[in-house]
């Protein structure tokens, strides 16, 4: 199944990826060929098969992560490209408008 250039642009936007203009056709063609291949699943008789959502065995999940072992903010932020006093630093999200 062929995918259009507009579709690639839309999903790249959703995935927060930037595809250089001269790469666009290659990416579009590669995705099309993979999607064409996965579309062969439509040949499979899936009547009566419910979707598998997570743990493949249906084995019960364990309890949630126990309390007691957690990262303190300083450790958790220590490796951030930019951080300060246990916080992550990012560029401004909202323009600082004059009052």
């Amino acid at each position: 199944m062929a995918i259009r250039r507009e579709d690639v642009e839309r999903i790249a936007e959703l995935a927060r990826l930037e595809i250089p203009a001269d790469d666009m056709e290659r990416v579009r063609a590669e995705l099309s060929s993979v999607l064409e291949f996965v579309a062969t699943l439509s040949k499979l008789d899936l009547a009566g098969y419910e979707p598998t959502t997570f743990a493949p065995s249906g084995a019960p999940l364990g309890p949630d992560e126990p309390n007691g072992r957690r990262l303190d903010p300083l450790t958790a932020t220590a490796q951030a490209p930019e951080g300060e006093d246990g916080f992550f630093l990012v560029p401004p999200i909202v323009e600082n408008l004059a009052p």
Partner: protein
Amino acid sequence: MSATETWAWPARDVAAAVNAGSARAEATAEAGWEGPGRVWEADVHAVVHADPAARAAAARASGKGPLAGVPVLLKDNLCTRDAYPTTCASKILAGWRAPYDATVVARLRAAGAVIVGKGNMDEFAMGSSTEFSCYGPTRNPFDLARVPGGSSGGPAAAVAYGLVPIALGSDTGGSVRQPAAFCGVYGLKPTYGRLSRYGLVAFGSSLDQVGVFARHAGDVAAAYEVLAGPDPFDATTRLGPAPDVSAWDSGVAGLRFGWPANLWKEGVAPAIVDALERAADALERAGARRVAFDFMPGTYAVATYYLVATAEASSNLARFDGVRYGFRHADAPDVRALYTRTRSEGFGAEVQRRILLGTYALSAGYYDAFYLTAQRARTRIRHEYRDAFTRCDFMLMPSAPSAAFRLGEKTSDPLEMYLSDVFTIGANLAGIPGLTVPFGRDAGGLPLAVQVLGPEDAEPVLLRAGRALEVGGERARLARSHTTEFAWPTKR
């Protein structure tokens, strides 16, 4: 005993010597680097992070236990505290040091093992050749013009050439079993949930399992005994004790093995088909019974996988945005530009391709046609395996359609690369265990292998079969020491 002698030993012999006091962990941890590593690592490039001082310190700190003094190499997507970065062979995690040990790493250390470094891999475990690494490719130690398989190619190659007796990888669609086959070593993908994923950087969370490489079936069992079992930090680990694999050397008499010969009627190299025939004969000689039946072609599993795994990956890899870890693009005037520029420059081409594919499969308008269909196909695949295992105790099939292919042979055609996992992906979708068993060489000297698959918790059966093929097959005439098993390659 010289300091370098122990590199050729099985891990169990190393541990026995260290526990008995006849060898020291400082020497056994160093043996592979002083021996084959000195000769081969520069050519093969299996290792991406290593440090002699850290290795010596880890050896000094190690204690007694079932893996005492055993050097272990970890795939670069397993978190280790302190000594080594954890980067998934990606620029986007450059230099990142995990604040904690993965559970499997903590269990190795508690068993006396010495972590000696991190092995090369395809970026974020996405690939089948270890060519998609930001550090450059690993080469197959049997033929440096060929790939070691992937994505855990570094750990597989290191075990093959003797740097370490045991290494850990991860297997989301065959990333332990396929490189094990290409490098002529054992590779186990356990039942989903038997080994903790805590501290394994996530790719496809419903498929990912940590796996074990070793040169001997008994060493795989020894590592599994240490690693398997519930972990409160991974809610998907199975509750209750892991299956007992201590009877790995008890033979296969009375077991039935499935023989789905329709799967290798076409598209499989004649040398692989020949290895399967010889393996089946060896199992029959050892008292197992062949049960022939047809099985669903693996291409359906590949199609299902490239929707399920990419969908999960597009979600899991959303966390890499330049805020919390690793690489951040220098020119980012606002947050949106920060995300987009960091990710576009930090991720390699294959990772971006899979994120795009997964985003597409999950996006409005395509979700039902792609993702939901794949989830239903996954259920059907699980049922196919379940039904097959009512007729046999384990199945025999190839690990890969061919022996190791050449560097560059498949990098330009993603689909061609994906199809090299046609025999391994089904086990991940079904959550069942699989073991690659090395089985002889082809005419060009490349390793050949077969794969055994079993129902959930069949690890004891798979190891018995793997061991039966070790003693009943090509390796029967080989000595226990690795030096005689591994003729040093001549193609440099």
